[in-house]
């Protein structure tokens, strides 16, 4: 039909930047901090930032799945704690071999996700409520199992917190692996593409033959599984599982996903963006420590910088469009 399609092509770089706007904010932040603190740009410090970002990033990768479907998972912090506690409890007081305990810890995370999904897909609960309930239940169970006290982690699992050689912290490796897994799932698998369709228009997805309920099971199970991994990494860094670990991390995880360009109304979001979002949060906290910003002001500064980071992104996006 139409002979002249009126198209202007944009360069791939410009397009890529437009889709990864948080990166600009991250770069600005890194440049700013290197100028303010001479300690910031050392290799060790950057590795520290990586290690400190790991737990949030892994939680956030899991949350990306959920947010892409238009849902929300408030339970990830509690589920992380519960998984680690189950692992540690299984290995030490219960005396299971550590691989069994590890599998049990991961299974608990997946199970929590499945319970969320059943409540959401079949019980028709709003995801906010279902996962808020799980936030309480998982935290409570972690406290019950541990009797409120930290439990030592089996040494083999605690190695997850180590650094291989001088420059290869295992948490960073785990983070990168989980990030790649998340990216592949989102971009290349049926489940991932279904997540985008469901988040974009659930009814259209259903009428296109996607089994929406079953896909939600997969989505929340993945989120629970990623939370379990995050919890185990967190515990391994301390060589001990804390029942109160990762309290409030759900907001950090969601913030990382949204800073990374996802929309809470669903259908949008990328693993790389989430990764950048998690790095922004970690760089910020690290920088505030290096600059010795007073405790009271830290929260103010974090708030302002988060708002600015996303503001830069939205304003830039508005200009290009």
């Amino acid at each position: 039909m139409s002979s002249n399609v009126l198209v202007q092509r944009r360069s791939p770089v410009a397009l890529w930047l437009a889709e990864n706007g948080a990166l600009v904010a991250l770069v600005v932040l890194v440049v700013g901090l290197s100028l303010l603190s001479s300690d910031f740009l050392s290799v060790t410090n950057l590795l520290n930032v990586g290690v400190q970002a790991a737990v949030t990033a892994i939680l956030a990768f899991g949350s990306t799945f959920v947010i892409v479907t238009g849902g929300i998972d408030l339970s990830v912090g509690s589920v992380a704690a519960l998984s680690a506690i189950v692992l540690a409890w299984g290995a030490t007081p219960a005396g299971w071999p550590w691989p069994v305990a590890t599998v049990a810890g991961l299974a608990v995370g997946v199970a929590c996700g499945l319970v969320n999904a059943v409540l959401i897909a079949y019980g028709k609960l709003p995801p906010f409520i279902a996962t808020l309930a799980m936030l309480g239940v998982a935290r409570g169970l972690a406290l019950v199992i541990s009797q409120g006290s930290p439990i030592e982690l089996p040494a083999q699992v605690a190695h997850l917190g180590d650094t291989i050689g001088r420059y290869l912290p295992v948490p960073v490796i785990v983070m990168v692996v989980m990030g790649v897994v998340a990216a592949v799932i989102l971009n290349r698998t049926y489940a991932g593409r279904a997540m985008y369709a469901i988040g974009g228009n659930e009814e259209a997805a259903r009428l296109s033959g996607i089994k929406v309920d079953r896909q939600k099971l997969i989505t929340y199970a993945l989120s629970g599984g990623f939370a379990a991994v995050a919890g185990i990494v967190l515990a391994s860094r301390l060589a001990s599982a804390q029942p109160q670990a990762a309290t409030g991390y759900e907001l950090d995880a969601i913030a990382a996903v949204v800073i990374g360009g996802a929309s809470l109304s669903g259908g949008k979001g990328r693993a790389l963006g989430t990764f950048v979002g998690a790095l922004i949060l970690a760089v910020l906290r690290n920088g505030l420590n290096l600059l010795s910003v007073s405790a009271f002001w830290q929260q103010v500064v974090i708030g302002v910088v988060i708002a600015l980071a996303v503001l830069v992104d939205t304003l830039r996006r508005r200009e290009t469009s």
Partner: protein
Amino acid sequence: MTGDILRAEGLRKQFPGVLALDGVDLSLRAGEVHVLLGENGAGKSTLIKILSGAYHPDGGRVLMDGRPVRIRSAGDARALGIATIYQEFNLVPQLTVAENLALGRPPRRFGLVDRARMERDAAGLLARVDVRVDPRTPVGRLGIARMQMVEIAKALALEARILIMDEPTAVLTTGEVEKLFAIVRQLRDEGVSIVFITHHLEEIPQIGDRVTVLRDGRSVAEVPASTPHDELVRLMVGRPIDQQYPRKRARPGEPLLKVRGLTRRGVFADVSFEVRAGEVVGVAGLVGAGRTEVARAVFGADHYDAGEVTVNGRRVPPGDVHAAMEAGLGLVPEDRKGQGLVLGAAVAENLGLVTLRDATRAGFVDRKGQRSAAAKVAGRLGIRMAGLDQEVRTLSGGNQQKVVIGKWLVAGARVLILDEPTRGVDVGARVEIYQLVNELTAAGDAVLMISSDLPEVLGMSDRILVMARGRLVGELPAAGATQDDVMAMAVAEVEGGRVQ
């Protein structure tokens, strides 16, 4: 009548990747019905969105009563006496009909919203467009045609000097179109100027005074409404179209789809029919006859209380879309925005939605293969877009409809249920879709086509089923049937009356 009430001169509008308007002129006289004509994506909706303050032009100017005006917001347009009915519904589904009619300007008493008066006003407006619905019903519960009538009532409430209507008849059946035309004529006689967009060329001489034709974002002609059909098509498409309904009837084979005693309480009852291989079965009826509901039930999108559906000899369980698809059913839903498209996703993604499962090997999707399949279909339907990565949201209405149909063409269903398939599609593309229907039936597949466009039903079906008030009230062979035959059946009193 001194000169133009509104003039647009050299309007330009650029979207990322698309120059939607490239120097468009329009002159509107007082008390005329001015038809805007153009292919899907020609820029009609963009033009009227500029006039109504939804978009800002990148160039050109708008004059009212000879003076240049700036229309920066919907409020500005309203203040200038311009009311607009958009192509896509602008209703709030959660709010009641009364509230939607008063949206943005509810009657107030002592600073508080006066609900009683709002509902009284609404009842008056609804009576004016002859829609019988409780003003306290949430709009989301209305069928799509009824929503359109609410949109029309909403625009009437503004008592504007200029009324712009973007494809108001696309979702209406013959009866409502007549009602709408009566309202339009009355307004015109009261001196209101009307801009009217339609893809139904037969409506132009009935209602229009003058026609402006847009092509590729430019205004290419201004002609009287009495201009012959073929000439209008040539101006619009750039080439003549020889046959509007190119149905090639094949000899029907085995029954592919059998529906027996399908019943859903309060919606439809005892619906039985079959569709044979190579056949196009049309379904006609008034709005609210329950055609859409039956189609959705057959496809498994909704549950039903009794009856059974068999496809190619296989029983399809109720309420299971996936099983229906496995059995070979496909459904192009009538509500493209709500049910057909993932608006925020790219054209390629949407076209690949139905075949996602088939393109998956060991959990991984062959996205390259999907893309090339999408490119092929997009080319075939002539989807006008900046590229396969354009968000479907930013396509023109007709092109969105092509994507909805396109995704099922990629899938290769044996029995395709089309619910209002050419709603908002231009004449050229319509013929393309009809050709595709022909190809499907020639290959031994079957099509069940629900349409409120009677000429289309008559022109493209082999048999016509007529529904009224949730029941199948008759069947006609398409050959030799007339619009009057169908209408007579559709309005005939049904024994037993209301379905329960």
